[in-house]
């Protein structure tokens, strides 16, 4: 299911990527984004992050988990970020954990960090007014069988409200 694999070839992080991630991790430990907790693993290349639904939002009291996989050439390429099961019910989050959020794909910039991604995701959750899957969830998920990465999806971003 969505939390594993995605059939991606695991390539070792480049030196630049490792340096940068080490820095981010250190920074995270000093100053973690509010509502998130990095679950300690021995892998710098895959982070598991707990997400706590913000108070006074639809997701208050709920806990989710993000899986962040870093490519060899991070931060020149965006990390792959998906929700592990069970993803939040949200119009931009598919039941396989894929997240439709432009900064994870076309709008990625190397100045972004895991921390900034987390904040964007929490913001997306918090501004939701309805707990629902995207209308094309079934169709999309069906087409992602066999573990396709969301980075291979061509996303269309059109809603800046949520």
């Amino acid at each position, binding site marked *: 299911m969505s939390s594993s694999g995605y*059939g991606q*070839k695991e390539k070792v992080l480049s030196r*630049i990527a490792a*340096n*940068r991630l080490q*820095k*981010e991790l250190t*920074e995270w430990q000093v100053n973690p984004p509010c509502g998130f907790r990095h679950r300690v693993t021995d892998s710098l290349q895959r982070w598991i992050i707990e997400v706590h639904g913000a108070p006074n939002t639809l997701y208050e009291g709920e806990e989710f988990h993000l899986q962040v996989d870093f490519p060899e*050439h991070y*931060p*020149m*390429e*965006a990390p792959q970020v998906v929700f592990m099961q069970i993803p939040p019910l949200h*119009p*931009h989050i598919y039941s396989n954990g894929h997240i*439709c959020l*432009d*900064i994870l*794909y*076309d*709008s*990625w*910039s*190397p*100045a972004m*960090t895991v921390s900034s991604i987390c904040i964007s995701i929490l913001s997306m959750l918090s501004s939701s007014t309805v707990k629902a899957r*995207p*209308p*094309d969830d*079934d*169709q*999309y998920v*069906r*087409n*992602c*069988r*066999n573990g*396709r*990465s969301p*980075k*291979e*999806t*061509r*996303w*269309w*971003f*059109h*809603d*800046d*409200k*949520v």
Partner: protein
Amino acid sequence: MTSLGGTYWCHQCTRTVIPRNRDELTCPSCNDGFLEEIDNPEGGESNEFMGLGGMHDAFGFAGGDVDLGERADAPGGVSAGFRRYQPESRGMPFPGRSGHPAVLQLLEAMSAVLQQIQPTQGGQEPGEVDLGGGGIRARGQGGIVEDGTGGFNSMLMLQGQMQNFLGGGGNVEVFFDNGTGIPRRLPGNFGDYFLGPGLDQLIQQLAENDPNRHGAPPASKSAVEAMPTIQISQEHLGTDAAQCAVCKDEFELGASVRQMPCRHMYHADCILPWLAQHNSCPVCRYEMPTDDQEYNQSRASGQSNPTPTASTYPMTTNPGMDGGGRDGGGTSGGFTFWGSQGLERQPSVETSSGGSRDLGSSAPTRSGSGAQASSGSAAAAPASGGGIARRISLHLPWFRAATSPAPAPAPPESSGTGGGGNRNQGSGNRNNGGDEHMEPHPELD
């Protein structure tokens, strides 16, 4: 199938070849199977199945409403995925930009187009894509595809009316031919036809070999070279500018850094690789000039468009179809198969595009015009389609291998470049390549 004895382009060797063996279309020099038919004097043969009656039959649509997603499960339905590419989203580096669901819209318009063109069959100049020369087999979901002849010497034929794509309309048709010349519907789940390790790898390659597939095009070399090199001085330190936003290291006093026109500074080693991929400032998204003419044009025209606004598309509307055309956006068309593997190919289409890339902003601004858009562009497309006839055959031997015990051959190394081939011809054509790779999925909301 078909076009035996024709001339093919080998994407591996990047040259024209004549396959030695008719049954197995492989390049005589590299033995690779990634061949593209470049000339087929015997076109009539394939066109036979393109009889419009056949199209209807093959699709089973008579009405205006097509939803292949649903059809996928319908008995006897064609469970293929079709979609038209978003003309180009690359030019939308700002968040919250807009787009639209394409698939259903394409399908709607497609059926509208079919209806439209029915009486004027002769007017069509179809482009065509053949996939799977001679041996598409299915596996999965319990089995081998039934086949009247036992051999299932089938062919998948994709007929794309490129002029429609280019004009902003679009349609793709898929047929299976079992060798009798009679198009047949696909039994079972279309997606299952494309299972196979080789195919997986192909897709992987197409997707992975192209780090530039998302976002804006590279900054032009001259613009990058023109960026001044600055020495970090005391006044830089202690400000926001004191850190390289890419590597997150503090600049050292006296260090040489590169300054972008927006005045953001980075280590050369940090910014140059990025600008080689994308033209935007990592911090503020200031866009450097690019050599990508199409992108530049679309940006120019995009700026005259209304600001994208958030919008919601009901699944049934069809703003997608007008995305390119109405914007003057002759852009590259594309074929997508999205089965479970999401195989897709975009043939190297020569877009005689008038240019503007859809910045994505165009679509939402017309969100209200859905229904009208679909019939409108659908109607217009065939009429205006004077244009491009193009047929491409992809013969992918591993389709066959999917059911054979032998391991599927690894996809050619060049498959990535094959798929994105146009990109390599220079930045001007990069759009085709850029379009080609990206997969389904419209995000709806």
